């Protein structure tokens, strides 16, 4: 089966790659574009470790075909910091010790960013339900939720001032 050519915008940069028709976006990111920050925990959309943002929507990149990325804008964990400046979510995750092994962290950060993009002032319950598609086995979620709420508050404050 011949490969398809795909052009997309990944973290602001135009990229091109060849893909088998059956290749997932996650495999294309990891194996074709060397963006291994997105992780595969299940391959079935149940764990969220591969979460990326496609045209503003949070998706599990293991459930999307790479060929579907044509002309899309894709944000991955590698594009979250601005140069050497961490995104407020990344900084708050560090300050709150909201990660232990760190494997689910890229996906949870992308999901959290999608939450705050859509809802800058979530309640704790809203944050918990939004992140319910992202499994973390280490933290019990307590410090993750605190970090997300703290980052949201700081980002709201930054917007006002």
């Amino acid at each position, binding site marked *: 089966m011949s490969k398809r050519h795909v052009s997309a915008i990944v973290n602001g940069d135009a990229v091109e790659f060849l893909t088998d028709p059956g290749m997932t976006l996650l495999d294309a990111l990891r194996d074709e574009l060397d963006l291994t920050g997105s992780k595969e925990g299940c391959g079935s959309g*149940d764990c969220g470790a591969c979460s990326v943002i496609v045209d503003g929507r949070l998706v599990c990149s293991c459930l999307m075909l790479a060929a579907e990325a044509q002309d899309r804008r894709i944000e991955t964990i590698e594009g979250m910091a601005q140069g050497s400046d961490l995104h407020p979510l990344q900084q708050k995750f560090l300050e709150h*010790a909201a990660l*232990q*092994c760190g494997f689910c962290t890229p996906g949870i950060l992308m999901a959290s960013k999608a939450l705050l993009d859509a809802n800058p002032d979530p309640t704790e319950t809203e944050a918990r339900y939004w992140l319910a598609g992202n499994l973390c086995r280490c933290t*019990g*979620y307590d*410090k993750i939720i605190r970090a997300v709420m703290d980052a949201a508050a700081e980002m709201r404050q930054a917007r006002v001032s």
Partner: protein
Amino acid sequence: MTDVLDRADATPRLKVVGTRPIRPDGADKVTGRAQFGADLTMPGQLVGKILRSPHAHARIVSIDAKKARALPGVKAVVTGADFPNLADEFHEGGEAASNLRDLAMNVMARDKALYDGHAVAAVAAISTAVADEALALIKVVYEVLPHVIEVEAAMASDAPVLHPTMFTEGLDERPALPSNIAKRNRIARGDLDAGFAAADVVIEGRYVTQAVHQGYIEPHACVASWAADGQCNVWSSSQGQFMVRTYCAKVLGLEISNIRVTPAEIGGGFGGKTTVYLEPLALALSRESGHPVKMVMSRDDVFRATGPTSGSVMYVKLGAKKDGTLTAADVELKYQAGAFAGSPVGAGSMTALACYDIANFVITGWDVVSNCPKVAAYRAPGAPIAAFAVESAMDDLARKLDIDPIALREQNGVKNGVKASYGPTFANIGYLETLAAIKTCPQYSMPLGPNQGRGVAAGFWFNVGGESTAAVHINEDGSAVVVTGNPDIGGSRASMAMMAAEVLGVPVEQVRPMVADTASIGFSMLTGGSRTTFATGMAVVQAAEKVVAELRRRAAVIWDVAVDQVVWADGVAVCRDPAKATGKTLTLEGLAGQSGRTGGPISAQVSLNAQGAGPGFGVHVCDVEIDPETGHVTVLRYTAAQDVGKAIHPSYVEGQIQGGVAQGVGWALNEEYIFDREGRMENAGFLDYRVPVASDLPMIDAILVEVANPRHPFGAKGVGEVPIVPPLAAVANAVRSAIGVRMTELPLSPPKIRAALDAKAG
């Protein structure tokens, strides 16, 4: 050995230990740069895949791989015939001893497949697609045998026998026939009959738990390279690179000196990565193909072929006086070991009554094989299961006697000087302090609404020490590097850097912690048994102390004074010789900068076998609300208190406790292995094996009780395992409080709760 008592007394003067700095590996982990097991790619690497048995129990009559080998793009095929058969040999890695013969047969089946998912062949090919095609071309002829899964069924005299060579150990007489019962163990004290005769009340129960998986989010992964000169390199995600090295050498019959293992970042382990599954296969495939081979498990592989911990059936009988004094306990534990002997029933037996001072007891444990994956360590292996039974019975006893559950535990709780049920005499333990912390926490006195209930439970874990190596190097600018051989599974780089910084008297940012490969640091047992902060931390502290002694010596050389006239304070050498200028100082940077003229580079390495790990106790209180229509249990509030000795980095200690609670809540409410009639796992994915998600849990309050362990330089006790011990019973006791029915079979899923409510309503 350091004069540790002085240090523990000096705790209030600590400047780094006990603070909450940002972890040194944090930036890489929030930006996606940290390299986990599946993230390394080597030039020319192949994809390795495993063919797994679809049968729970089957004789492997023949394996024909001719067509697979002939498929273009296939570079290697291996089966059990490619591995040496090993004799029984036990290896102690740091969490639980493993029989290397069984380990090798678990990595690759030989004459029999013993569970659904057991590896029977492996291929290496140029792509995943070709590897998958090759697996489909391997023809395995099986003779399917009767199988057995449940522990009591496996113990029955007519059960299909997995290993014809298995004769139960630990009985008074060697049995005449083989069985699935690998071993019986027994711990006893006093006179059980007299104890029950003296009791005013007796509580009895039968308790059942199901096999549950550690559920780390990162599937097992490795890359292995067998070079033409026989030098082997393995890059893998595990809880111990030295463990991987040992096991690969044994399974493949190699010299340890020819293997170097580099630890990847590890995406969770919880005990489940204290053994090998892929690495020896990847090496064998690399040997045959002449290429590096990468192997990554699917989630289905992880559930079917790794982990889990035991399912169990338990019987508990407690006797007590009217005033609450326990007089007797009879505990029988039957644990699934999976396909090979070695369930954690020994630890379950030793921990079952460890919280209590009872004059008369018998604890009997049964280690039973059956046709499910070989169990692996899971966080305090064996203890949560036994605690579920004993703490449920304690709750029933408190109700029957109308005594507050904390008060009942205080009355019978172990304290310093009491001989533990498992042998040694307790010293420097903080169980009563931990009980007091829960009694006075806000949650314990909060009013409950309709359909709500509150449960309390306690738990114990030994914590271990063991063999560790650490090195401290001073760079020429006065910064420091701390090198250990223990994978950082939840923040240990931070605690290692903090302990070194404390001794060196410098800010923690000046110390960079590294986890080295097996050729770059001396031997360390794996990260497990809650040993790293205690044992490896002790090696770090002693190495840093050697460096400080050397720095004082260098300053003495420069000042031309006796070394005892130089003190080290806050990262600076201070001259105390009145004959010279008292108070003259040399900074660490200054000493490092001229080390070439005072004797060369400044560094130290310490290898030790740490003894005196402090046992840990946890007490938890859980509030739940039951939806009477659906039977769904919501955890409303949760507080966990634990004696941690001394929290080196309190945030990561809290994180260990919160994470252990979450796993325990999942075990109590949702998680279980479900097998179909053919013995195949039916729920081998995160959709159907449901671990707790963020919306399932409330905030989890962690109370750190600090009763110092004088055997550790800063008083630390192991932390990571205790918090999973109490939750199963804490949740079950809360459900009992809410619905008025004692639930004795986990998980407490909605259908079971509904059935209990229906039965109660008549």
